[in-house]
């Protein structure tokens, strides 16, 4: 709290106020960080310590990665992590391309049918697809029990589309005119003019898509009958939230404390988010706000 940034009229807050604020912020930060801390600590503690302490550890005495080597040796968790990574990569790429294409075409003025198509898209804000009819669409289109069922039904997020279209509209029309006079077609204008100027918005929307693909579990549960195809979040739900025994879901021999293995799975399912988080964070306030203003 450097007083240099404080306007003169504001006056210096009393010491009591400052201490109270400090304590409040400390509590808020601890409430967020502590649960993460304890799952990491439990996952890297030795099995004996976890068992002796009744299932949780805050500061591990000895660090052991036995739980991780156990579940990454192959088997259900390894498989589920691979599936999640694959869905996230393919899904993000597909969604991003579809969103960019549609946003670009809708951002250009006077395209044949542009207006009705825009209305068609915006109308879906009012009536998001309901669960049962979506399920029937997936059944009737034959996507059931295929990985495509985890991607195609959530291909484009309307909010992301509107944000991206708004950003593309901000590209100066003169640039597009100039490129056109130089003989560039609509596709070249997209790849050579629009996209290089929109790296930030493409990055942040790509990250939003990636996070949502990585985190989704419900579509896997209803659309994939074959549980060996399940991504990590769906598998995690099975024995974190339903208490299914780990031995059933992992082929690895369970010499470990089930609790530290469970926490290791939670950590592995969280790590990719924590890794991309700094990148999203740099952009999202801007992205969210432009979106909010536009819509």
């Amino acid at each position, binding site marked *: 709290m450097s007083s240099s940034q404080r306007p003169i009229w504001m006056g210096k807050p009393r010491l009591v106020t400052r201490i109270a604020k400090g304590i409040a912020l400390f509590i808020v930060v601890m409430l967020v960080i502590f649960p993460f801390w304890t799952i990491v600590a439990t996952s890297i503690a030795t099995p004996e310590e976890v068992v002796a302490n009744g299932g949780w550890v805050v500061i591990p005495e000895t660090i052991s990665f036995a739980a991780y080597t156990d579940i990454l040796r192959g088997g259900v968790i390894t498989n589920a992590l691979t599936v999640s990574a694959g869905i996230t990569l393919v899904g993000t790429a597909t969604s991003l391309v579809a969103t960019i294409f549609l946003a670009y075409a809708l951002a250009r003025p006077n395209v044949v049918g542009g207006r009705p198509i825009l209305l068609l898209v915006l109308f879906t804000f009012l009536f998001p697809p309901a669960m049962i009819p979506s399920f029937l669409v997936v059944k009737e*289109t034959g996507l059931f029990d295929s990985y495509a069922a985890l991607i195609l*039904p959530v291909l484009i997020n309307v909010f992301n589309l509107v944000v991206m279209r708004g950003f593309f509209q901000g590209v100066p029309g003169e640039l597009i005119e100039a490129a056109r006079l130089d003989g560039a077609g609509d596709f070249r204008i997209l790849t050579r003019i629009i996209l290089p100027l929109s790296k930030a918005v493409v990055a942040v929307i790509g990250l939003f898509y990636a996070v949502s693909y990585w985190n989704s579990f419900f579509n896997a549960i209803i659309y994939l009958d074959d549980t060996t195809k399940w991504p990590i979040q769906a598998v995690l739900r099975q024995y974190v*939230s339903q208490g299914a025994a780990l031995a059933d879901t992992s082929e690895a021999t369970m010499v470990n404390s089930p609790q530290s293995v469970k926490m290791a799975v939670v950590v592995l399912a969280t790590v990719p988010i924590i890794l991309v988080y700094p990148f999203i964070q740099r952009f999202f306030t801007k992205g*969210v706000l432009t979106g909010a203003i536009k819509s």
Partner: protein
Amino acid sequence: MVATPTREPEAPTSTSDDPAAKLEAPKTPLRRRLRRDWVLLALMLPGVGYFLVFHYGALFGNVIAFKDYVPFIGVWDSPWVGIDNFTSLMNNSQFWHAAWNTVSIAGLQLIFYFPAPLALALLLHSLAGDTIRRFVQSVVYLPHFISWVIVVALFQQVLGDVGVLNGVLADNGLSTIDIIGNPDAYRPLVIAQIIWKECGWGTIIFLAALTNVNEQLYEAAAIDGANAWRRFWHVTLPAIRPVVILLLILRLGDILTVGFEQFFLQRNAVGPGAGEVLDTFVFYTGIGSGNFGTATAAGLMKGAIGLVLVYSANKIAHRLGEQGVYKSR
């Protein structure tokens, strides 16, 4: 969504200049415009196809609320049953129970969860130093990006019967608290979870509103002798009131939705008595037990009531002289 003044030049053969072309645009033959725009139309295809199949197809799929849907026969050939699904829904006590759970949880969310981001935003905004504020913001935004599966797992690890809280209580000879899986503790638990996950993210919009308040207003108030509390009451609060009301309207319109995944994950741990909400009712009735017609009817009713609620909440906001979500012209 404002039409931009620049427009595309016509095909090379056209001689019209910019403003004239705008006027003449509708007269350009459709075939020529199609030839001009075919690349853009092709780029639209995947996206438009997606919306037609998965949004409008699903919208159309709601017809099974009026049918006796039999999976092998398909949506088309299943027999019409009029409003039978709705009448059976009205006589279904589980449906009313789920509706009651939903509304009461939404009410609790409104009382405890809705003001939380506002309070946190005011606290963050009152910090003069940027470094601390940025750090706290980075920390509190994070849970928004964590999946519900993991959030539920984290809460179990901290509050569960073999969790940290009960471990500490037991070590100190105190009696343990049964929180996870206890129907009586379910409502406070789900409120605590949503505050933990979304409170930080919710501050963004309030912080933006707070930053937009004109500094001169504070300065003038201070010169007129207003202390910090009066500046807050007479400058800050009126300035952010439109945003608060806007969000409140959106929330009221969504009062029948409390969030699906969170409740789906924990419904079985506490049983349907405490854990069933409208969205989980739709899932367990439809996909769970195969009563697709009844489940769709429930979803449709929820959607229709939601639309009416948004519309009325917006009307009320206009009455109160606020801007509301949209302006009726």
